[in-house]
């Protein structure tokens, strides 16, 4: 476990290193009022928390089909592992299997690798937009990003171990360091999703080995599902007879079975575990509060729907009275967002611009998201207010 003293020592070292770094004060970077922090490899990210690390992608970066790793949101529930030695790293596979396994990183690398472009979204993305507000990291719109994840299929590893007929769920445990008496961040997924050809033990992201913040050397990648399913710093896979019983399966990461009134409490027995993501779109530009010149303005953004596909995105420039179809981007993959653009010829005035996505399951973003006590799966129609002169 990482002690407070170790942590302070590391921070002191970081401060020394940064103090001696070259000065680049003239760089034309928009600096928010509250200042900036240097975290190597993480660029222009909103710091929701430094310790433990939670970084949100600003909406203006949600404008590329693959998110560069320095702009890919980071969600940690605990402290990152203080020691990560790729040679000493082991992945164990046990529980309801015939032949428990222990794999090294080089053994894992010998298995056939697959790539999945996946939009990863934290279940709590948009929590800050719920009213009344609820406790948790106050994510705005950017706890979502897309990358090409590569690595062996989880099912290839599970089949090598031989799943017993009693094996119905698959549990992941990572190497994150747990402070105090906090319950460990352990969750499970049903065996059907674990055996899906697209569920991976990912070792690479956008063609490069995972960085530490994204789970080096290996993470689960459960495509189309809430980010919490895709356990980082993976070190143990265990096949279970039933869903893992722990805080992050219940009461954590559950959604009310029935709509609830904002502010209501919900009994645990009236909830179910979160799995796939909602239909959702976000406007990456123009930015909220922007002042723009009259003429051609490109309204753009991204839209995603978990395991479903986006079938249309519409934009309104008059607060929702009329909706206009957008052009969807060329790049697509089953679990990846679609970029979209609406070319708008704007006259002077104040505007509320809205975006609304519809998916292949017939789901459409609602005007008001379903409030729930933990602020999960927020997916109301997105909006920005701009001035055109």
């Amino acid at each position: 476990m990482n002690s407070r003293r170790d942590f302070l020592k590391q921070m002191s070292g970081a401060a020394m290193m940064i103090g001696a770094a070259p000065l680049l004060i003239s760089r034309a970077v928009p600096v928010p009022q509250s200042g900036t922090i240097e975290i190597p490899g993480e660029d222009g990210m909103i710091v929701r928390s430094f310790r433990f690390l939670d970084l949100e992608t600003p909406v203006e970066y949600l404008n590329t089909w693959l998110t560069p790793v320095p702009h890919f949101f980071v969600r940690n529930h605990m402290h990152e592992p203080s020691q990560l030695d790729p040679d000493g790293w082991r992945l164990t596979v046990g529980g309801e299997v015939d032949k428990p396994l222990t794999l090294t990183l080089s053994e894992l690398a010998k298995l056939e690798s697959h790539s999945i472009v996946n939009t990863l979204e934290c279940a709590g993305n948009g929590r800050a937009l719920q009213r009344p507000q609820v406790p948790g990291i106050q994510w705005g719109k950017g706890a979502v990003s897309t990358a090409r994840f590569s690595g062996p299929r989880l099912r290839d590893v599970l089949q090598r171990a031989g799943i017993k007929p009693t094996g119905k769920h698959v549990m992941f445990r990572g190497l994150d360091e747990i402070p105090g008496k906090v319950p460990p961040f352990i969750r499970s997924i049903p065996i059907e999703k674990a055996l899906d050809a697209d569920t991976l033990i990912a070792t690479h992201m956008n063609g490069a080995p995972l960085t530490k913040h994204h789970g080096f050397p290996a993470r689960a990648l459960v495509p189309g599902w809430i980010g919490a399913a895709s356990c980082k710093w993976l070190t143990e896979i265990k096949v279970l007879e039933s869903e893992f019983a722990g805080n992050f399966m219940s009461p954590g990461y559950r959604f009310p079975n029935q709509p609830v009134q904002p502010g209501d409490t919900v009994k645990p027995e009236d909830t179910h575990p979160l799995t796939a993501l909602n239909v959702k779109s976000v406007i990456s530009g123009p930015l909220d509060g922007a002042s723009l010149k009259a003429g051609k303005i490109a309204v753009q953004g991204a839209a995603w729907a978990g395991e479903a596909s986006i079938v249309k995105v519409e934009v309104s420039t008059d607060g929702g009275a009329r909706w206009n179809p957008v052009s969807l981007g060329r790049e697509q993959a089953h679990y990846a967002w679609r970029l979209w653009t609406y070319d708008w010829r704007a006259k002077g005035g104040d505007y509320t611009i809205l975006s609304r996505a519809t998916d292949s399951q017939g789901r459409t973003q609602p005007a008001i998201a379903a409030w729930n006590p933990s602020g999960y799966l927020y997916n109301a129609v997105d909006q920005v207010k701009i001035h055109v002169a």
Partner: protein
Amino acid sequence: MWGQPPSAVRSGTARLSAMLLTLAITSIILAALSPIATFAQNPVPVKVTEDLPPGSMQAKATTSCLECHEARIILQQRLSKGAWAKEVDKMVKWGAVVDANDRDALIDYLSTNFSPDRPLYEPPRTWIGKTAEKAPSTSSAAGKSK
């Protein structure tokens, strides 16, 4: 001098050079003297981790809460007193050391400073380094993933 606005920095090459030199020396001295990480690269400095606001419970809240996480996780919440009570009790169950006699005062301190009517917390951003703006190629496997 840490708070020089960008406009002052841009006002002249000579002044800029002098300021950069002063900043460089100051930053090295400060870094050597203090474990508090403030960053010389930016015209607006910010501490890596924040402090809790002043008040009679500041010291006790710092000891109880910040052992496991930094203050920003608290500073960004906007919760009713009832919701703060639930959070405090959950954290005590998870290992936060709070004297039973201090529980109510701690809840008062949190719900006074971080109530729903307070302005939203404005978080800092990470500094933009050399790796920014390089979008990976999307040409190779688009549409082929499934």
